[in-house]
């Protein structure tokens, strides 16, 4: 019966789309990649080199057992073609993470109340760069919510648990549609946050009724965007697997740069890295730049966050973003990126210069 309803809804959508001039197909894609949504991180967690999904994370495994792998392969399609910007009264409490149950894929398993979903570690009061996939780019707004202090993580998520953090219209994109590029914008996280929270992102298209829904499990524990609960060797510790790091050496440029790379077994052929810049001079900097040379053919997957790529591999140069070039003496800033290829070992020698 439900399948007939789905087919009828789809048929109506297709019919309606065919009457609209210049309409886009019903299929569009968009879910938060940082802080990672449950579906995006569970996909990273379970995806194997041959394309099969075999979850390491138990919450992801339970969701796959409940609804199969096909929804998870479509991690970017947590959507309602009839969303129309609606929230309370349309998406039931307890089904916010799946966008209710009227989408093309059944994501209701991802509403489960569990404390072992993949987790992104953040610092209260810090500024992060949110990244939201842009497989099919559309005009629209992103409304970002966070759970209120005192919410109950052991109960189904309710609309009354959420408060709006920000709303962003038509943010820039890291690259063209298709692939793993994304919309991005800076978000100042509220201070006074600690422990477990959910960041919920609602993408409201301006050119259709289609909406997307992303629940990202986060914890405010002083983290810098580390992700735990993804891939093999999961531990409750917030420290991700660390490959050999470079020792920061003082340079004439007045700053040091420290490399940390995180292997990503859930994303074949990719790793993630973070570079921390520290002002070792006696005056504030106006800007900084870090350079290194890849020798193993590594590349970038999308743009760095909290930094601007100013020279392409193999001779890489990353400069400060508009908001983190000014560092007081001893202050630090960190930028990160997704990379293609294998983690360089030993870590590349980094050169840091300030201006």
């Amino acid at each position, binding site marked *: 019966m439900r399948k007939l309803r*789905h087919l009828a809804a789809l048929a109506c959508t297709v019919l309606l789309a065919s009457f609209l001039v210049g309409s886009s197909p*019903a299929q*569009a894609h968009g879910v938060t990649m940082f802080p990672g949504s449950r579906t995006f991180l569970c996909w990273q967690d379970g995806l194997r080199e041959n*394309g099969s999904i075999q979850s390491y994370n138990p919450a992801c495994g339970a969701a796959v057992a409940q609804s*199969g*792998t*096909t929804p998870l392969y479509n991690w970017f399609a947590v959507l309602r073609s009839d969303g129309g910007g609606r929230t309370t009264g349309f998406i039931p409490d307890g089904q916010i993470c799946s966008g209710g149950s009227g989408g093309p894929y*059944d994501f209701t398993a991802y509403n489960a109340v569990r404390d072992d979903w993949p987790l992104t570690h953040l610092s209260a009061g810090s500024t992060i760069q949110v990244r939201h996939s842009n497989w099919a780019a559309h005009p629209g707004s992103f409304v970002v919510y966070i759970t209120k202090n005192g919410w109950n993580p052991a109960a189904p998520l309710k609309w009354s648990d959420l408060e709006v953090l920000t709303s962003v219209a038509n943010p820039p994109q890291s690259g063209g549609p298709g692939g*793993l590029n994304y919309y991005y914008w800076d978000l100042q996280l509220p201070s006074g946050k600690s422990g477990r929270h959910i960041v919920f992102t609602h993408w409201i298209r301006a050119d259709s009724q289609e909406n997307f829904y992303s629940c990202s499990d986060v914890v405010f524990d002083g983290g810098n965007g580390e992700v735990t609960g993804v891939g093999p060797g999961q531990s409750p510790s917030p420290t991700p697997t660390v490959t050999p790091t470079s020792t920061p050496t003082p340079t004439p440029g007045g700053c040091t740069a420290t490399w940390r790379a995180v292997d990503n077994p859930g994303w*074949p052929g990719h790793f993630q890295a973070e570079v921390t810049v520290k002002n070792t001079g006696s005056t504030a900097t106006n800007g900084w730049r870090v350079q290194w040379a890849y020798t193993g053919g590594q590349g970038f997957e999308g743009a760095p966050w909290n930094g601007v790529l100013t020279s392409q591999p193999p001779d890489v140069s990353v400069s400060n973003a508009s908001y983190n070039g000014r560092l007081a003496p001893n202050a630090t800033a960190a930028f990160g990126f997704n990379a293609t290829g294998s983690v360089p070992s030993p870590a590349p020698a980094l050169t840091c210069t300030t201006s």
Partner: protein
Amino acid sequence: MRRTLRLPYAWQVRTRAAVLVAASAAVLVAVAVTVVALAANADEFGPPELKRALALRVTQVLEQATLQEHREHGHHFGEHDGQVVCAVAPFGVHPEGAVKVAEVRWVYAHHMCAVTGARQSWATSVRAAGPIAVRLAGRPTVRVPASGGDYAEQVRALVPERCHEAALAGFADDEAIEEARRRFDGRRG
């Protein structure tokens, strides 16, 4: 004059009993052999060439379906997705015991389909996988497990009981995946 050997009555009874016991034993042995044979062939449903032919047929059905046909059977590929490339591993047929493609009315198989439009590697381009039932007679029809309920129950409702275990297991044919990946890489360009 012919003489007929006639056993004493008691001997006749014992002899008949012995014959019955021997016959029963023979039947039991035959049954046991059949059971063992069936158990050994639980994952096999016919000659290897039948499996290959059915895999090819189901692959064609999936890869040549129109977007509308995909939607009708529950695959939501879109225009941005480019071409669909699939790995297929059959694990059962109906009627049971069919040995030629022409005799097969339904194929039960694992599928794993990727889309070239993602412009990513094979693994990150997979968009659908799991057990399906494909009717070959007449216009090919694909059935995927219904969504919105207990997935395992939906899978069990889709395939015969003798195929439940195989259906709930993962995609076990690595060669089929590698072959599909080669075709995928060739088409992705």
